[in-house]
């Protein structure tokens, strides 16, 4: 289901161009609005659809196997931490779903440099950052003699 852009809704802001992992949302120079330049490299990942502030991008199922008349619309509310989907079948049935997307405020992750620096000799150990506390077990599992067979 490659994407397409509704002429009347797009204001050419470029958010979709900025986010598309496939680099296929481009601004059309004459109309100054976005369009999908390479539908056959679209993964219908919805990254651009979710990012568009104008809800100007929609998806029409791939012509080679998806009959017309369906729609899958999304509204991702970052601040509220939820995403809602509305699925309209070709025969008119509708399904709606809402799921959480994040449990903490955006931007709240503590950077690794925000923790006390590890002692220098820990660099030679097998521990990774925040271990052992973050592991939830005391020791780091080792390949011991009863689990181990040397070739």
């Amino acid at each position, binding site marked *: *289901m490659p994407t397409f852009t509704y002429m009347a809704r797009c204001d050419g802001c470029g958010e979709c161009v900025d*986010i598309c*992992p*496939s*680099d*296929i949302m481009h601004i059309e120079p004459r109309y100054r609005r976005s369009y999908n330049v390479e539908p*056959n490299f*679209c*993964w*219908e*990942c919805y*990254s651009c659809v979710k990012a568009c502030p104008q809800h100007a991008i929609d998806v029409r*199922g*791939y*012509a*080679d*196997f*998806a*009959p*017309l008349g*369906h*729609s*899958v619309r*999304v509204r991702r509310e970052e601040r509220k931490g939820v*995403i809602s*989907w509305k*699925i*309209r*079948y*070709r*025969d008119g*049935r509708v399904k709606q*779903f809402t*799921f*959480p997307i*994040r*449990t*903490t405020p955006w*931007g709240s*992750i503590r*950077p*690794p440099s925000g923790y006390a*620096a*590890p002692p220098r000799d820990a*660099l*030679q150990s097998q521990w*990774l*950052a*925040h271990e052992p506390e*973050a*592991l*939830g*077990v005391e020791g*780091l*599992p*080792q*390949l011991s003699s009863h689990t181990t*067979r*040397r*070739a």
Partner: protein
Amino acid sequence: MGAWSSKQTRYIDSDILIVGGGFGGCGAAYESRYWGRDLKIVLVEKANIERSGAVAHGLSAINCYMGMRWGENQPADFVRYARSDLMGLVREDLIFDIARHVDSTVHKFEEWGLPIMKDPETGRYLREGRWQVMIHGESYKPIIAEAARKSATVFNRIMVTHLLTDGTRRNRVAGAVGFGVRDGRFYVFRAKAVIVCAGGASHLFRPRSIGEGVGRTWYAPWSSASAYGLVLQAGAKMIQMENRIVLARFKDGYGPVGAWSLLLKARTTNAAHGDYEAARREEIKALVGRYAESSPLPTCLRNHAMLQELKAGAGPIYMQTKEVLDTRQKEDIGWEDFLDMTVGQAVLWASQNIDPKERASELMTSEPYVMGSHATCSGAWASGPEDCAPADYQWGYNRMTTVEGLFGAGDTIGGSAHKFSSGSFTEGRIAGKSAVRYVLESGARTPRPDEAQVRRLKALVYQPLAHFAVGRNAIVAGSVAPGYISPLQGLQRLEKIMDEYAGGIGTFYVTSEPMLSRGLELLTLLKEDLERIGAEDLHQLQRAWELSHRVLTAEAVIRHTRYRQETRWPGYYYRADYPKLVDPHWHVFTCSQYDAQTSAWDIGKLPVHHLID
């Protein structure tokens, strides 16, 4: 060509350069910053790390989690599972290393804000299967990207085309080059250590979809084999490149089947509602012996059963979804599975009027993919953990390839299957810490790429734009020109060669020595034509270099497949001339090394050591 060769060059120096900001790359960024407080850490990404790589959509499960704090699983159990799934051929040291650290990664993800589902009765993470936990993972990638951005200086929209080596020591990495997909500039990244995390490979083989739908592959269309293309060109040893993966997925939409089969317990049947897998157990045992006795049945053998069924005309194969969606909660789980990670499946159902509550959905085996993090483990040969790798698996720092200073994680590293998202991030952390050690311990000498190498690469990188500019003048209009082909035309040629000769869907995954040799001949011609690719703009220039990485990777796949004279993984591919699994000769890794200057390949075997009972 003029305008492009005069493009400005920008030099960026760092201690550690991370190529690719997916799960491996974000893990590498976080951990290298934790240990290397004063180091300069740079991450370069061809897209935007907010939504890049295989997890751009999001995911609905974390597929690698031990649950050691609840005594659920131990790393040794995980090694046994991955080993039997891969028919015995894995790097047990690498897998053990990931398994013993992966829980701390997942706990950190939860602390950062990733919603992990809980089992209401036990309060523990809700298990999808023995190793998987369910998440509300639409924002999995943006959350992980936030942690990476706080750890490293990120350059988005730069396509890395080549690694640089030291001017005097060829087997020492010195950085990487690429071009800005937006600004067109030439970027030269000089670094003391490089961690390649550039992801696996889709679109090596002709996909099942056609026309507009060819982007609807299972692995992302932007998984362009750069991990392999980059490191093998630098001379790193590669292993198991023949171990491509075929996936049984919902037909056309490629919706994953894990939650449906493991958590919701939907049955997979043939058209007559029969449990064909059970019916074919004995037949499979006769084919591969004791490997068919492991439970669960290895992924390739499950494919094999399905393929036998399809060939017998007993298809379509169905997932009996309607038998299991008896509550709203289960319906939510089933739909979220796709809406979080493969929206296309939901679009397909809506368009074909398929309500999974009312009717079954078709499954199909995909075209093959090459990657290092799933139920498959192609990739670079890496030095193992200091405390548990056998001596011949250890020559330097953990996760360093055979090129000095060059590390990898995720799909890049071979031999350690079943990493998935959490394991790839964990391997990135392991490589990140290791690279810090390497930088701090290897002394002050900064490697220096020689200027002639940089100049040569700069001219090379922009050549496709020149080919187009010149060749386009010879014709009136259209896409047919005598002097160049477009990146898409080249990609289609590659896919056709791989499909027809190297075991794609066109031959039901069957190949043989004569087929592989003929395929290699045609691939060599394509490789020559790569020097005449025409790119219309910077976007097409990115496609041109993605194609170059894919073609080199495909060559490795063909050469490894030809070398292994057995059918190791029936269901992934078949050697018609060597239809049996032959443990006495082939319980080994195939290993290759490419010399970019002479285009010669050196190919041989490496031992598989079993460290766990």
